[in-house]
């Protein structure tokens, strides 16, 4: 090294001059590395943390008739998860996101179709009744039994998902359901969906008969 040339004290790289600026190349590289490292660690931890709802195979049932693919799923959570807030008059909703994809061995599955169902129960404390609302269709029904309301939230029965003509015979497909639970009103803001709280995740592999 010549006159005035010293190794970088930050990372010992052989730069010609000492790093004096905040955004000098060495400082920038080092901090980008740190940011990347911390971000990666954080993302991994978040993924691990968020993925507490483990994928459960075969908890989803697929019914296939001549024209339509149906699915049935049961959300296995404790009744208190819904019962307590409902008794306090807090509306509760479950969001069922059903996706059907073609299974690919060495790549991500090809998405064939997906549908989202939101079911909400609005308690009426004065009349002690429960208004069951299918948000997607707008159909509502008032019931006077809390178990009926909970069943409405936790049981998806014979739900039409896909037209059979979209699928091919002897091709493996996977139907998956992710269920999110909302206690209280669903936040309509765009960023609210960035941090979903998945309560259950199920899938079922099938082929057309």
């Amino acid at each position, binding site marked *: 090294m010549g006159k005035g040339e010293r190794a970088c004290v930050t990372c010992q790289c052989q730069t010609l001059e000492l790093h004096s600026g905040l955004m000098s190349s060495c400082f920038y590289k080092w901090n980008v590395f740190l940011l990347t490292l911390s971000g990666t660690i954080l993302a991994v931890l978040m993924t691990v943390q968020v993925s507490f709802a483990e994928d459960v195979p075969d908890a989803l049932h697929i019914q296939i008739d001549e024209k339509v693919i149906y699915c049935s799923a049961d959300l296995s959570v404790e009744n208190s998860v819904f019962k307590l807030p409902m008794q306090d008059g807090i509306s509760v909703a479950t969001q069922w996101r059903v996706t059907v994809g073609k299974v690919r061995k060495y790549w991500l599955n090809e998405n064939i179709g997906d549908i989202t169902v939101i079911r909400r129960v609005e308690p009426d404390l*004065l009349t002690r009744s429960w208004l069951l609302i299918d948000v997607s269709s707008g159909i509502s029904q008032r019931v006077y039994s809390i178990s009926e309301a909970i069943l409405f939230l936790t049981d998806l029965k014979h739900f039409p998902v896909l037209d059979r003509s979209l699928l091919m015979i002897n091709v493996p497909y996977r139907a998956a359901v992710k269920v999110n639970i909302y206690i209280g009103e669903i936040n309509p803001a765009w960023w609210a969906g960035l941090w979903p709280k998945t309560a259950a995740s199920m899938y079922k592999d099938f082929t057309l008969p």
Partner: protein
Amino acid sequence: MRLVPLLMASLLLTATVMLWPSSDDGGGLLAWVNVGLMLLMTLLLVQYGVRLLRETDEPAPGSRLRAKLVIALVTMLLVPAMVIQMAASQMVDKGMDVWFDVRVDTLLDRALNLAQGFYERVEKDMKRDLLDYISDAALLAAVTGNMDYRTSSAYLTEMSKAEGWNKVELFDVNERQVGGIQAGELSALQASPLNNTARLAMRLGRVVTELVMHKNGEVAVGYAPLVGPVSVLGLLRVEVQLPAGVIQNARSVEADYRNYRQLERNRQTIRSTFTHVMLFVTLIVVLLAGVVALLFARRLTAPVGELAEALHRVTEGDLDVEIAHSPRDELGSLGRSFNTMANRLKQNVEAIEQAQLDLTSALDSSRQRQYVLESLLANLHSGVVLIDSEHRVRLLNQAVRDILQLPAEWIPSADFTQLSVGNMHDIGDFYDELRHQEEDYLQREFDIALSEGKTLHVLARGARLSASGTAFSGYLLVIDDISELAEAQKNKAWAEVARRLAHEIKNPLTPIKLSAERLQRRFRKQVDNEQVFDVCTKAIIDQTERLQRLVSDFSTLARMPQPKLREVPVNSLLSDMHELFHGYRRISVEIDENEHAHCNCDPDQVRQVLINLMDNAVSATDEACAIRLYAVVSDVFAEWHVEDDGDGIDAENAVKLFEAYYSTKSDGSGLGLSIAKRIAEDHGGDLKLLSLSGPTHFCLKLPRQVEVKEAT
């Protein structure tokens, strides 16, 4: 100090673990953002701490000061921020305890119970009233078609007024409306169909009520099956408009209750969110403060670092360093002062380097001179002794040692006055005389008796070295061995005497001798006393002959011829001596028949020497003493030894034995041994008296191969 960043990192990591978001934590994304920020800060601290630990060299100038400033500034901000956060958390906790007080809870429960009681009361009243009409004959007649429409409408109106219903409708078993009245204006042309609740009431045969939300308010709807003798024949549906004020209050109570419960359910989430928001703000503030502090510290320490770097380069010898950017403040003044100092230092160093070059050059010159002087002194045949004012020997060359045969203690720094004892006494006297005389120069010739009876004739010259002319003051002694010179001068003098004798004396001697012989022959008969005449003339003749021999010897000494060298067998000279002296029984010449060595010499001159030695031995000893002559030959020298068992030679005489005109014989010229010694020296050899007596031993030693010395 180096562990502080790692310690802080461990504390931060501990805090991160403690604040790690759980699945039921209400922090959400913000909690993870906080964790990310704390991990980032931990990584930065770990990176800095590891760098500090691995740092072996001197850190970059100003980095420590910058780190301390950043730490100080961040700490100054972090401490109050943490205090504020803790205080705010406490306040939130206290506030939430107040908000969610049990009294509020009880109050809302009671209010909700009141509202629910109102609805229950309405439903109960409606059910009780409807029970009265389940088996009403008029209504049964109306639904079975046994009553005309006017009569039935009048009956329904009467019922409505009696019970306070706002709307009354009558349906047959086929859910076909058979009659109905409504208070106020008609809301719809067609009757609304029966819902599931109504069908359920008909199917079960029970009175059922429900609350229905209409555009103009809530309505309590009651369904009463009309039961005939056998089966249900129809359905009575009534509606009561609930009072708007009461309903509004009841709904408000319900809404408040719902909101309160929702807030209560989110109590932990609110607290957690508040904590994470505060933590996020604190972390952002700390990070921003750190960045600002870093920028500020960098701006503050950059001149210091630049100055330290410049000083470091100066200490490494780079004097061309200059601080380019000098702000207009105290640090800038410091930088300018440094530039001035460096410039002056550079000038001084250049001057010193120039002086060093000059000194080096002078030193080289001085060393060269000293080398020349030492070489000169080493090769000089004159002995040189330099004595300082402390009488210490500062310098003496090898010639001094060779000439004076100095003992081992004669070394530089030895005291000259203490060394000048014994046979060196004369040197000490000369030095004393030089020191005590007024003049700066002294020259003396004197003899020094060395060991083995050798006498040295030296010429000593001394000079006083005064400090005025040179830095050194002392004395310089130059000693020359002039023994040979003196000997040569003496020989020359004797040669001159001989030449004069030959010239002035030898010529008259022959006429004197002839005249004396003529007188003896012609006037012997004429004298009165022949005996006296014979004695006198014989004395004249004998003395004249003696004078002739004397003059002849002197002449020989004066005109010593150049040796005519040739290869001569050593034994041949012994054989010559044997033939010459074989008449003497006491003389034995020992000849080694196996010795065939030769010597490069003039055989006549060597023979003359040997004859002289043998002759001296014969004349100095009586008949009983044996005389031996033998030769010893080595690779370099050939030696002829003459020994006799006579009385020997006195030591006093032995000193002058080889001097010219010194003889112990009454008729000797005293030139024999002088001539013999000159012959030996002319051959490059020597003639020595090895022992004075028992036996008296002379040795003629000649080199076997030698250049002939120029005749003196």
